[in-house]
Protein backbone atom coordinates (compact mmCIF):
# COMPACT_ATOMS: atom_id res chain seq x y z
CA UNK A 1 0.00 0.00 0.00
CA UNK A 2 2.81 2.38 0.81
CA UNK A 3 4.34 1.93 -2.57
CA UNK A 4 0.99 2.62 -4.15
CA UNK A 5 0.81 5.88 -2.34
CA UNK A 6 3.57 7.27 -4.51
CA UNK A 7 1.23 7.32 -7.46
CA UNK A 8 -1.42 9.20 -5.53
CA UNK A 9 0.85 11.56 -3.67
CA UNK A 10 0.51 15.31 -4.13
CA UNK A 11 3.75 15.39 -6.04
CA UNK A 12 1.78 14.10 -9.00
CA UNK A 13 -0.23 17.27 -9.35
CA UNK A 14 -1.94 18.24 -12.50
CA UNK A 15 -5.16 19.51 -13.97
CA UNK A 16 -8.17 17.42 -13.15
CA UNK A 17 -10.15 15.83 -15.91
CA UNK A 18 -11.80 12.58 -16.95
CA UNK A 19 -8.89 11.19 -18.93
CA UNK A 20 -6.39 12.47 -16.37
CA UNK A 21 -8.20 10.72 -13.56
CA UNK A 22 -8.43 7.43 -15.41
CA UNK A 23 -4.76 7.67 -16.24
CA UNK A 24 -3.95 8.50 -12.67
CA UNK A 25 -5.92 5.57 -11.35
CA UNK A 26 -4.22 3.30 -13.85
CA UNK A 27 -0.79 4.68 -13.04
CA UNK A 28 -1.49 4.44 -9.33
CA UNK A 29 -2.62 0.86 -9.59
CA UNK A 30 0.39 -0.11 -11.68
CA UNK A 31 2.76 1.51 -9.22
CA UNK A 32 0.88 -0.09 -6.35
CA UNK A 33 1.07 -3.52 -7.96
CA UNK A 34 4.78 -3.21 -8.74
CA UNK A 35 5.48 -1.93 -5.25
CA UNK A 36 3.41 -4.65 -3.71
CA UNK A 37 5.16 -7.28 -5.79
CA UNK A 38 8.63 -6.02 -4.86
CA UNK A 39 7.74 -5.68 -1.21
CA UNK A 40 6.23 -9.09 -1.04
CA UNK A 41 9.14 -10.89 -2.70
CA UNK A 42 11.02 -10.20 0.52
CA UNK A 43 8.14 -11.23 2.74
CA UNK A 44 7.67 -14.25 0.52
CA UNK A 45 11.19 -15.43 1.10
CA UNK A 46 10.87 -14.90 4.83
CA UNK A 47 7.52 -16.68 4.90
CA UNK A 48 8.88 -19.64 2.90
CA UNK A 49 11.90 -19.82 5.17
CA UNK A 50 9.85 -19.70 8.37
CA UNK A 51 7.40 -22.29 7.17
CA UNK A 52 10.09 -24.73 6.14
CA UNK A 53 12.64 -24.09 8.86
CA UNK A 54 13.44 -26.65 11.52
CA UNK A 55 12.90 -23.98 14.17
CA UNK A 56 9.17 -23.88 13.50
CA UNK A 57 9.00 -27.63 13.85
CA UNK A 58 10.74 -27.55 17.23
CA UNK A 59 8.51 -24.78 18.45
CA UNK A 60 5.44 -26.40 16.99
CA UNK A 61 6.07 -29.58 18.95
CA UNK A 62 6.26 -27.80 22.29
CA UNK A 63 2.77 -26.64 23.29
CA UNK A 64 3.84 -23.98 25.82
CA UNK A 65 6.65 -22.61 23.68
CA UNK A 66 4.33 -22.65 20.74
CA UNK A 67 1.68 -20.65 22.56
CA UNK A 68 4.24 -18.15 23.87
CA UNK A 69 5.85 -17.57 20.50
CA UNK A 70 2.52 -17.25 18.79
CA UNK A 71 1.07 -14.82 21.27
CA UNK A 72 4.28 -12.79 21.13
CA UNK A 73 4.05 -12.61 17.37
CA UNK A 74 0.35 -11.77 17.38
CA UNK A 75 0.68 -9.04 20.00
CA UNK A 76 3.56 -7.42 18.16
CA UNK A 77 1.91 -7.76 14.81
CA UNK A 78 -1.25 -6.11 16.09
CA UNK A 79 0.59 -3.20 17.68
CA UNK A 80 2.87 -2.54 14.75
CA UNK A 81 0.08 -2.97 12.32
CA UNK A 82 -2.11 -0.51 14.15
CA UNK A 83 0.70 2.03 13.99
CA UNK A 84 0.71 1.60 10.24
CA UNK A 85 -3.08 1.61 9.95
CA UNK A 86 -3.46 4.85 11.88
CA UNK A 87 -0.90 6.48 9.62
CA UNK A 88 -2.66 5.11 6.57
CA UNK A 89 -6.04 6.30 7.77
CA UNK A 90 -4.71 9.78 8.35
CA UNK A 91 -2.96 9.87 5.03
CA UNK A 92 -5.98 8.49 3.22
CA UNK A 93 -8.34 10.91 4.94
CA UNK A 94 -5.99 13.72 4.09
CA UNK A 95 -5.88 12.85 0.42
CA UNK A 96 -9.63 12.46 0.24
CA UNK A 97 -10.07 15.83 1.87
CA UNK A 98 -7.65 17.64 -0.43
CA UNK A 99 -5.09 17.75 2.35
CA UNK A 100 -1.65 16.21 2.61
CA UNK A 101 -1.98 14.27 5.83
CA UNK A 102 1.01 13.63 8.09
CA UNK A 103 4.14 14.76 6.36
CA UNK A 104 7.06 15.57 8.57
CA UNK A 105 7.90 12.77 11.00
CA UNK A 106 9.68 10.14 8.99
CA UNK A 107 9.11 9.39 5.32
CA UNK A 108 5.78 11.05 4.47
CA UNK A 109 4.93 11.15 8.14
CA UNK A 110 5.20 7.39 8.51
CA UNK A 111 6.62 7.76 12.02
CA UNK A 112 3.92 10.22 13.06
CA UNK A 113 1.94 7.57 14.90
CA UNK A 114 5.08 6.43 16.68
CA UNK A 115 5.65 10.00 17.82
CA UNK A 116 2.04 10.24 18.94
CA UNK A 117 2.26 6.95 20.78
CA UNK A 118 5.32 8.18 22.62
CA UNK A 119 3.48 11.38 23.45
CA UNK A 120 0.52 9.41 24.79
CA UNK A 121 2.86 7.23 26.81
CA UNK A 122 4.44 10.12 28.65
CA UNK A 123 1.20 11.99 29.22
CA UNK A 124 -0.22 12.41 32.67
CA UNK A 125 -2.64 9.67 33.56
CA UNK A 126 -5.82 11.45 34.59
CA UNK A 127 -8.62 9.70 36.44
CA UNK A 128 -11.56 12.05 36.97
CA UNK A 129 -12.22 12.72 40.64
CA UNK A 130 -15.71 11.29 40.71
CA UNK A 131 -15.12 8.45 38.30
CA UNK A 132 -15.49 4.83 39.28
CA UNK A 133 -11.75 4.38 39.31
CA UNK A 134 -11.67 0.60 39.03
CA UNK A 135 -13.98 0.46 36.04
CA UNK A 136 -12.31 3.46 34.49
CA UNK A 137 -8.90 1.84 34.71
CA UNK A 138 -9.93 -1.55 33.48
CA UNK A 139 -12.19 -0.45 30.62
CA UNK A 140 -9.49 0.12 27.97
CA UNK A 141 -8.13 -3.36 28.59
CA UNK A 142 -11.60 -4.85 28.50
CA UNK A 143 -11.93 -3.29 25.08
CA UNK A 144 -8.50 -4.31 23.88
CA UNK A 145 -8.30 -7.89 25.14
CA UNK A 146 -11.13 -9.41 23.09
CA UNK A 147 -9.67 -7.76 20.03
CA UNK A 148 -6.34 -9.39 20.66
CA UNK A 149 -8.05 -12.72 21.34
CA UNK A 150 -9.84 -12.68 17.99
CA UNK A 151 -6.49 -12.63 16.21
CA UNK A 152 -5.97 -16.10 17.60
CA UNK A 153 -8.28 -17.64 15.02
CA UNK A 154 -7.54 -15.34 12.10
CA UNK A 155 -5.86 -17.55 9.46
CA UNK A 156 -3.02 -15.68 7.75
CA UNK A 157 -2.28 -18.90 5.93
CA UNK A 158 -2.97 -22.60 6.35
CA UNK A 159 -0.18 -22.82 8.89
CA UNK A 160 -0.01 -19.22 10.10
CA UNK A 161 -2.95 -19.40 12.38
CA UNK A 162 -2.91 -19.22 16.12
CA UNK A 163 -5.44 -21.90 16.84
CA UNK A 164 -8.01 -23.18 14.44
CA UNK A 165 -10.80 -25.38 15.66
CA UNK A 166 -14.25 -26.45 14.62
CA UNK A 167 -15.99 -23.44 16.15
CA UNK A 168 -13.53 -20.71 15.16
CA UNK A 169 -16.25 -18.57 13.54
CA UNK A 170 -18.44 -18.68 16.60
CA UNK A 171 -15.44 -18.00 18.80
CA UNK A 172 -14.50 -14.92 16.80
CA UNK A 173 -18.05 -13.60 16.93
CA UNK A 174 -18.50 -14.28 20.61
CA UNK A 175 -15.21 -12.73 21.61
CA UNK A 176 -15.38 -9.67 19.40
CA UNK A 177 -18.77 -8.72 20.86
CA UNK A 178 -17.10 -8.34 24.24
CA UNK A 179 -15.54 -5.12 23.06
CA UNK A 180 -18.86 -3.51 23.89
CA UNK A 181 -18.28 -4.53 27.50
CA UNK A 182 -15.18 -2.38 27.63
CA UNK A 183 -16.98 0.50 25.96
CA UNK A 184 -19.88 0.26 28.38
CA UNK A 185 -17.47 0.12 31.31
CA UNK A 186 -15.73 3.21 29.99
CA UNK A 187 -19.03 4.99 29.52
CA UNK A 188 -20.23 4.19 33.00
CA UNK A 189 -16.93 4.43 34.83
CA UNK A 190 -15.98 7.88 33.59
CA UNK A 191 -19.01 9.41 35.31
CA UNK A 192 -19.56 11.75 32.42
CA UNK A 193 -22.93 12.23 30.77
CA UNK A 194 -21.56 12.20 27.25
CA UNK A 195 -19.61 9.04 28.03
CA UNK A 196 -22.65 7.37 29.50
CA UNK A 197 -24.76 8.13 26.45
CA UNK A 198 -21.95 6.96 24.19
CA UNK A 199 -21.49 3.76 26.15
CA UNK A 200 -25.20 2.98 26.10
CA UNK A 201 -25.38 3.65 22.39
CA UNK A 202 -22.36 1.47 21.70
CA UNK A 203 -23.76 -1.43 23.66
CA UNK A 204 -27.15 -1.32 21.94
CA UNK A 205 -25.55 -0.94 18.56
CA UNK A 206 -22.98 -3.70 18.84
CA UNK A 207 -25.51 -6.17 20.21
CA UNK A 208 -28.11 -5.37 17.56
CA UNK A 209 -25.74 -5.54 14.60
CA UNK A 210 -24.24 -8.78 15.88
CA UNK A 211 -27.37 -10.58 14.69
CA UNK A 212 -27.33 -9.76 10.97
CA UNK A 213 -23.55 -10.08 11.09
CA UNK A 214 -23.81 -13.60 12.45
CA UNK A 215 -26.52 -14.55 9.97
CA UNK A 216 -24.56 -13.22 7.01
CA UNK A 217 -21.59 -15.27 8.20
CA UNK A 218 -23.86 -18.28 8.55
CA UNK A 219 -24.69 -17.89 4.87
CA UNK A 220 -21.01 -18.50 4.15
CA UNK A 221 -20.92 -21.37 6.60
CA UNK A 222 -23.93 -22.91 4.90
CA UNK A 223 -22.09 -22.96 1.61
CA UNK A 224 -18.68 -24.06 2.81
CA UNK A 225 -20.14 -26.45 5.34
CA UNK A 226 -17.71 -25.74 8.14
CA UNK A 227 -17.34 -23.43 11.11
CA UNK A 228 -13.57 -23.57 10.92
CA UNK A 229 -12.04 -20.51 9.29
CA UNK A 230 -9.22 -22.55 7.77
CA UNK A 231 -11.73 -24.94 6.22
CA UNK A 232 -13.74 -22.02 4.88
CA UNK A 233 -10.65 -20.64 3.18
CA UNK A 234 -9.62 -24.07 1.88
CA UNK A 235 -13.02 -24.42 0.26
CA UNK A 236 -12.25 -21.30 -1.76
CA UNK A 237 -9.00 -22.62 -3.17
CA UNK A 238 -10.39 -22.76 -6.71
CA UNK A 239 -12.55 -19.66 -6.72
CA UNK A 240 -13.31 -17.05 -4.07
CA UNK A 241 -16.69 -17.29 -2.46
CA UNK A 242 -17.73 -13.88 -3.70
CA UNK A 243 -17.17 -14.98 -7.29
CA UNK A 244 -18.12 -18.64 -7.01
CA UNK A 245 -21.46 -17.99 -5.35
CA UNK A 246 -21.99 -14.41 -6.46
CA UNK A 247 -25.80 -14.26 -6.29
CA UNK A 248 -25.84 -14.99 -2.56
CA UNK A 249 -22.36 -13.95 -1.55
CA UNK A 250 -22.49 -10.37 -2.84
CA UNK A 251 -25.56 -9.48 -0.73
CA UNK A 252 -24.08 -11.39 2.16
CA UNK A 253 -20.86 -9.41 1.84
CA UNK A 254 -22.81 -6.15 1.67
CA UNK A 255 -24.64 -7.02 4.88
CA UNK A 256 -21.41 -8.18 6.48
CA UNK A 257 -19.67 -4.93 5.57
CA UNK A 258 -22.48 -2.76 6.91
CA UNK A 259 -22.60 -4.72 10.15
CA UNK A 260 -18.83 -4.63 10.39
CA UNK A 261 -18.98 -0.84 10.16
CA UNK A 262 -21.47 -0.85 13.00
CA UNK A 263 -19.40 -3.27 15.07
CA UNK A 264 -16.36 -1.08 14.57
CA UNK A 265 -18.25 2.12 15.48
CA UNK A 266 -17.22 3.63 12.20
CA UNK A 267 -19.12 6.30 10.27
CA UNK A 268 -22.04 6.04 9.42
CA UNK A 269 -22.37 4.15 12.70
CA UNK A 270 -20.01 6.20 14.85
CA UNK A 271 -22.79 7.17 17.24
CA UNK A 272 -20.93 6.07 20.38
CA UNK A 273 -18.30 8.70 19.74
CA UNK A 274 -20.38 11.10 17.66
CA UNK A 275 -18.22 14.14 18.12
CA UNK A 276 -20.90 16.63 17.13
CA UNK A 277 -23.28 15.45 19.84
CA UNK A 278 -21.28 13.62 22.48
CA UNK A 279 -17.91 15.39 22.23
CA UNK A 280 -16.16 12.06 21.81
CA UNK A 281 -18.56 9.69 23.48
CA UNK A 282 -17.25 6.95 25.68
CA UNK A 283 -13.62 8.05 25.58
CA UNK A 284 -14.30 11.71 26.38
CA UNK A 285 -12.53 11.50 29.72
CA UNK A 286 -9.63 9.33 28.63
CA UNK A 287 -6.14 10.55 27.99
CA UNK A 288 -2.67 9.17 27.70
CA UNK A 289 -2.08 5.46 27.37
CA UNK A 290 -5.63 4.47 28.28
CA UNK A 291 -6.90 6.48 25.35
CA UNK A 292 -4.23 4.88 23.21
CA UNK A 293 -5.57 1.46 24.15
CA UNK A 294 -9.02 2.39 22.89
CA UNK A 295 -7.45 3.56 19.69
CA UNK A 296 -5.39 0.40 19.48
CA UNK A 297 -8.52 -1.70 20.01
CA UNK A 298 -10.43 0.24 17.39
CA UNK A 299 -7.86 -0.17 14.68
CA UNK A 300 -6.97 -3.74 15.58
CA UNK A 301 -10.66 -4.52 15.41
CA UNK A 302 -10.75 -2.82 12.06
CA UNK A 303 -8.05 -5.13 10.78
CA UNK A 304 -9.74 -8.16 12.27
CA UNK A 305 -13.11 -7.42 10.69
CA UNK A 306 -11.49 -6.79 7.32
CA UNK A 307 -9.51 -10.01 7.76
CA UNK A 308 -12.70 -11.87 8.55
CA UNK A 309 -14.27 -10.48 5.40
CA UNK A 310 -11.27 -11.64 3.38
CA UNK A 311 -11.42 -15.07 5.01
CA UNK A 312 -15.11 -15.50 4.37
CA UNK A 313 -15.56 -13.92 0.96
CA UNK A 314 -12.25 -13.22 -0.74
CA UNK A 315 -10.40 -16.48 -0.54
CA UNK A 316 -8.25 -15.74 2.49
CA UNK A 317 -4.60 -16.42 1.76
CA UNK A 318 -5.20 -17.87 -1.69
CA UNK A 319 -3.55 -16.11 -4.55
CA UNK A 320 -0.95 -16.75 -7.22
CA UNK A 321 2.81 -16.40 -6.84
CA UNK A 322 3.01 -14.76 -3.45
CA UNK A 323 3.00 -16.42 -0.07
CA UNK A 324 -0.30 -16.81 1.78
CA UNK A 325 0.24 -14.26 4.54
CA UNK A 326 1.23 -11.64 2.01
CA UNK A 327 -1.94 -12.18 0.03
CA UNK A 328 -4.03 -12.20 3.14
CA UNK A 329 -2.57 -8.95 4.44
CA UNK A 330 -2.82 -7.25 1.09
CA UNK A 331 -6.48 -8.21 0.67
CA UNK A 332 -7.23 -7.16 4.21
CA UNK A 333 -5.66 -3.79 3.65
CA UNK A 334 -7.87 -3.27 0.63
CA UNK A 335 -10.96 -3.94 2.73
CA UNK A 336 -9.63 -1.69 5.50
CA UNK A 337 -9.17 1.05 2.94
CA UNK A 338 -12.71 0.49 1.70
CA UNK A 339 -13.97 0.94 5.26
CA UNK A 340 -11.96 4.15 5.57
CA UNK A 341 -13.26 5.38 2.24
CA UNK A 342 -16.83 4.88 3.41
CA UNK A 343 -16.02 6.53 6.70
CA UNK A 344 -14.79 9.71 5.07
CA UNK A 345 -17.74 9.95 2.72
CA UNK A 346 -21.03 9.39 4.49
CA UNK A 347 -22.79 11.18 7.35
CA UNK A 348 -23.92 9.61 10.60
CA UNK A 349 -27.18 7.84 11.41
CA UNK A 350 -29.43 8.93 14.21
CA UNK A 351 -29.77 6.41 17.01
CA UNK A 352 -33.34 5.33 16.22
CA UNK A 353 -32.62 5.19 12.51
CA UNK A 354 -29.56 3.07 13.21
CA UNK A 355 -31.63 0.61 15.22
CA UNK A 356 -34.49 0.68 12.73
CA UNK A 357 -32.09 0.01 9.89
CA UNK A 358 -30.78 -3.02 11.71
CA UNK A 359 -34.03 -4.59 12.83
CA UNK A 360 -36.26 -3.61 9.92
CA UNK A 361 -33.85 -3.92 7.03
CA UNK A 362 -30.71 -5.86 7.82
CA UNK A 363 -32.12 -8.68 9.93
CA UNK A 364 -34.86 -9.65 7.42
CA UNK A 365 -32.47 -9.21 4.53
CA UNK A 366 -29.83 -11.35 6.17
CA UNK A 367 -32.41 -14.05 6.86
CA UNK A 368 -33.42 -13.98 3.20
CA UNK A 369 -29.79 -14.20 2.16
CA UNK A 370 -29.19 -17.05 4.57
CA UNK A 371 -32.17 -19.03 3.19
CA UNK A 372 -30.99 -18.30 -0.33
CA UNK A 373 -27.52 -19.52 0.62
CA UNK A 374 -28.96 -22.72 2.05
CA UNK A 375 -30.89 -23.36 -1.14
CA UNK A 376 -27.85 -22.44 -3.20
CA UNK A 377 -25.68 -24.91 -1.31
CA UNK A 378 -28.18 -27.65 -2.08
CA UNK A 379 -28.06 -26.70 -5.74
CA UNK A 380 -24.27 -26.64 -5.77
CA UNK A 381 -24.04 -30.06 -4.21
Amino acid sequence: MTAGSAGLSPSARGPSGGAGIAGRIAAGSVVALIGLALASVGCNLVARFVEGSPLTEVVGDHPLLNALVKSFIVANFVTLHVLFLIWWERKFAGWIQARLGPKHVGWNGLAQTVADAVKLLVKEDIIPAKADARLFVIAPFLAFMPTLLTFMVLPFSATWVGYDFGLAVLFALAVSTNVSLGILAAGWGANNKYSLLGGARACAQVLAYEIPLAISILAVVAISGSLSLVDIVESQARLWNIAAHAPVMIPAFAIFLICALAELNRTPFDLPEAESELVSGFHTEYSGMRFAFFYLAEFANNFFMAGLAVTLFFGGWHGPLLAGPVWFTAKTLVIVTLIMWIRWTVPRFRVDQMMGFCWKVLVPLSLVVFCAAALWSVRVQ
Partner: protein
Amino acid sequence: MRVLSDFVAGFAAVFRGLWVTLLNLVGRPKVTLQYPFERPKVSPRYRGLFYLPYDKEGDRLKCVGCTLCAQACPTKVITMEKLGSGKHAGVSEFTMDLGRCMFCNLCIEACPFDAIHMGPEYELASYDRNASVFTIRELAEGGAEAVKRNNATIQAALERERESGGGGGQQPLVRLSVSPGNDPGAAKP
Protein backbone atom coordinates in the same frame (compact mmCIF):
# COMPACT_ATOMS: atom_id res chain seq x y z
CA MET B 1 -42.08 -1.53 -4.74
CA ARG B 2 -41.54 2.11 -3.81
CA VAL B 3 -39.60 1.06 -0.76
CA LEU B 4 -37.38 -1.12 -2.92
CA SER B 5 -36.72 1.60 -5.48
CA ASP B 6 -35.95 4.06 -2.70
CA PHE B 7 -33.55 1.55 -1.23
CA VAL B 8 -31.77 1.08 -4.55
CA ALA B 9 -31.71 4.84 -5.18
CA GLY B 10 -30.24 5.35 -1.73
CA PHE B 11 -27.46 2.89 -2.38
CA ALA B 12 -26.79 4.48 -5.74
CA ALA B 13 -26.55 7.88 -4.05
CA VAL B 14 -24.01 6.54 -1.57
CA PHE B 15 -21.94 5.22 -4.44
CA ARG B 16 -22.09 8.59 -6.17
CA GLY B 17 -20.81 10.13 -2.95
CA LEU B 18 -17.99 7.60 -2.88
CA TRP B 19 -17.20 8.53 -6.47
CA VAL B 20 -16.93 12.20 -5.48
CA THR B 21 -14.45 11.42 -2.74
CA LEU B 22 -12.53 9.12 -5.09
CA LEU B 23 -12.27 11.90 -7.66
CA ASN B 24 -10.94 14.20 -4.98
CA LEU B 25 -8.53 11.51 -3.84
CA VAL B 26 -6.90 11.03 -7.20
CA GLY B 27 -8.02 13.84 -9.49
CA ARG B 28 -7.70 17.06 -7.54
CA PRO B 29 -4.61 18.88 -6.38
CA LYS B 30 -4.11 19.04 -2.66
CA VAL B 31 -4.51 22.52 -1.28
CA THR B 32 -2.61 22.34 2.00
CA LEU B 33 -0.16 25.15 2.55
CA GLN B 34 2.75 23.85 4.63
CA TYR B 35 2.62 26.98 6.72
CA PRO B 36 5.88 27.54 8.49
CA PHE B 37 7.73 26.27 5.40
CA GLU B 38 5.53 27.86 2.76
CA ARG B 39 3.88 31.19 3.30
CA PRO B 40 0.82 32.62 1.65
CA LYS B 41 1.40 35.34 -0.89
CA VAL B 42 -0.60 38.24 0.45
CA SER B 43 -2.32 40.73 -1.79
CA PRO B 44 -0.85 44.22 -2.35
CA ARG B 45 -3.69 45.67 -0.28
CA TYR B 46 -3.03 43.34 2.61
CA ARG B 47 -3.60 44.93 6.00
CA GLY B 48 -0.65 43.74 8.05
CA LEU B 49 1.86 45.44 10.33
CA PHE B 50 1.98 49.23 10.09
CA TYR B 51 4.98 51.21 8.95
CA LEU B 52 5.73 54.91 8.67
CA PRO B 53 7.13 55.64 5.20
CA TYR B 54 10.41 57.47 4.93
CA ASP B 55 10.74 60.42 2.60
CA LYS B 56 14.18 60.09 0.99
CA GLU B 57 14.16 63.56 -0.59
CA GLY B 58 13.35 65.34 2.62
CA ASP B 59 15.46 62.83 4.59
CA ARG B 60 12.73 62.47 7.21
CA LEU B 61 9.61 60.51 7.97
CA LYS B 62 6.56 61.67 6.09
CA CYS B 63 4.55 61.94 9.28
CA VAL B 64 3.94 65.52 10.42
CA GLY B 65 2.24 64.59 13.67
CA CYS B 66 -1.17 66.03 12.79
CA THR B 67 -2.95 63.32 14.89
CA LEU B 68 -5.68 62.82 12.30
CA CYS B 69 -5.00 59.09 12.36
CA ALA B 70 -5.23 59.03 16.14
CA GLN B 71 -8.56 60.81 15.93
CA ALA B 72 -9.87 58.45 13.27
CA CYS B 73 -8.99 55.37 15.29
CA PRO B 74 -12.04 53.70 16.85
CA THR B 75 -10.00 51.98 19.56
CA LYS B 76 -7.45 54.72 20.32
CA VAL B 77 -4.44 52.72 19.32
CA ILE B 78 -2.18 55.60 18.30
CA THR B 79 -0.33 58.04 20.52
CA MET B 80 2.35 60.38 19.26
CA GLU B 81 4.70 63.12 20.33
CA LYS B 82 5.01 66.03 18.02
CA LEU B 83 8.39 67.47 17.11
CA GLY B 84 8.60 71.02 15.89
CA SER B 85 5.76 72.93 14.34
CA GLY B 86 4.64 74.71 11.24
CA LYS B 87 6.29 73.61 8.02
CA HIS B 88 8.90 71.57 9.87
CA ALA B 89 6.48 69.53 11.94
CA GLY B 90 7.25 65.90 12.54
CA VAL B 91 7.04 63.21 15.17
CA SER B 92 9.61 62.06 17.66
CA GLU B 93 7.43 59.36 19.17
CA PHE B 94 4.71 57.35 17.50
CA THR B 95 3.38 54.43 19.50
CA MET B 96 0.75 51.92 18.44
CA ASP B 97 -0.72 49.41 20.86
CA LEU B 98 -1.59 46.70 18.36
CA GLY B 99 -3.18 44.62 21.09
CA ARG B 100 -6.19 46.84 20.59
CA CYS B 101 -5.91 47.34 16.87
CA MET B 102 -8.66 46.02 14.58
CA PHE B 103 -6.63 46.61 11.41
CA CYS B 104 -9.64 48.48 10.07
CA ASN B 105 -7.66 50.79 7.78
CA LEU B 106 -9.38 53.97 9.03
CA CYS B 107 -6.14 55.63 10.19
CA ILE B 108 -4.55 55.10 6.81
CA GLU B 109 -7.50 56.61 5.01
CA ALA B 110 -7.50 59.55 7.41
CA CYS B 111 -3.88 60.48 6.71
CA PRO B 112 -3.58 63.39 4.25
CA PHE B 113 0.17 62.91 3.86
CA ASP B 114 0.21 59.23 3.04
CA ALA B 115 2.46 58.89 6.04
CA ILE B 116 1.17 55.65 7.55
CA HIS B 117 0.84 52.37 5.69
CA MET B 118 0.10 48.75 6.34
CA GLY B 119 2.65 46.24 5.18
CA PRO B 120 2.43 42.56 4.36
CA GLU B 121 3.69 41.25 7.70
CA TYR B 122 1.08 39.25 9.55
CA GLU B 123 2.88 37.25 12.22
CA LEU B 124 2.21 39.61 15.10
CA ALA B 125 1.40 37.21 17.90
CA SER B 126 3.61 37.30 20.95
CA TYR B 127 3.79 35.83 24.41
CA ASP B 128 3.87 39.22 26.03
CA ARG B 129 1.19 41.87 25.99
CA ASN B 130 3.82 44.56 25.93
CA ALA B 131 5.36 43.09 22.83
CA SER B 132 2.33 44.22 20.87
CA VAL B 133 3.10 47.85 21.66
CA PHE B 134 5.10 49.12 18.71
CA THR B 135 7.17 52.27 19.07
CA ILE B 136 8.35 54.57 16.33
CA ARG B 137 11.67 52.76 16.15
CA GLU B 138 9.89 49.57 15.11
CA LEU B 139 7.31 51.24 12.93
CA ALA B 140 9.53 53.64 10.96
CA GLU B 141 10.66 52.50 7.56
CA GLY B 142 14.38 52.13 8.17
CA GLY B 143 14.08 51.52 11.88
CA ALA B 144 15.82 53.39 14.66
CA GLU B 145 18.39 54.81 12.23
CA ALA B 146 15.63 56.46 10.23
CA VAL B 147 14.12 57.93 13.38
CA LYS B 148 17.49 59.38 14.31
CA ARG B 149 17.90 60.98 10.91
CA ASN B 150 14.30 62.19 10.99
CA ASN B 151 14.84 63.90 14.30
CA ALA B 152 18.14 65.39 13.15
CA THR B 153 16.64 66.74 9.92
CA ILE B 154 13.74 68.36 11.69
CA GLN B 155 15.93 69.76 14.45
CA ALA B 156 18.30 71.23 11.88
CA ALA B 157 15.42 72.75 9.94
CA LEU B 158 14.01 74.27 13.09
CA GLU B 159 17.47 75.59 13.96
CA ARG B 160 17.83 77.20 10.54
CA GLU B 161 14.40 78.72 10.86
CA ARG B 162 15.20 80.18 14.24
CA GLU B 163 18.44 81.66 12.86
CA SER B 164 16.73 83.22 9.88
CA GLY B 165 14.31 84.85 12.26
CA GLY B 166 11.14 82.89 11.84
CA GLY B 167 8.43 84.01 9.46
CA GLY B 168 8.08 80.51 8.13
CA GLY B 169 4.44 80.47 9.07
CA GLN B 170 3.39 82.18 5.86
CA GLN B 171 5.09 79.61 3.68
CA PRO B 172 3.16 76.54 2.65
CA LEU B 173 3.92 73.24 4.27
CA VAL B 174 6.85 71.31 2.93
CA ARG B 175 5.53 69.41 -0.03
CA LEU B 176 6.12 65.81 0.82
CA SER B 177 6.46 63.49 -2.11
CA VAL B 178 3.43 61.30 -2.23
CA SER B 179 3.84 57.96 -3.87
CA PRO B 180 0.82 55.80 -4.66
CA GLY B 181 2.62 52.88 -3.05
CA ASN B 182 0.24 50.28 -1.81
CA ASP B 183 -2.20 52.75 -0.36
CA PRO B 184 -5.41 50.76 -0.16
CA GLY B 185 -7.40 53.91 0.12
CA ALA B 186 -6.23 55.38 -3.16
CA ALA B 187 -9.08 55.08 -5.62
CA LYS B 188 -8.03 53.55 -8.89
CA PRO B 189 -9.92 54.40 -12.01
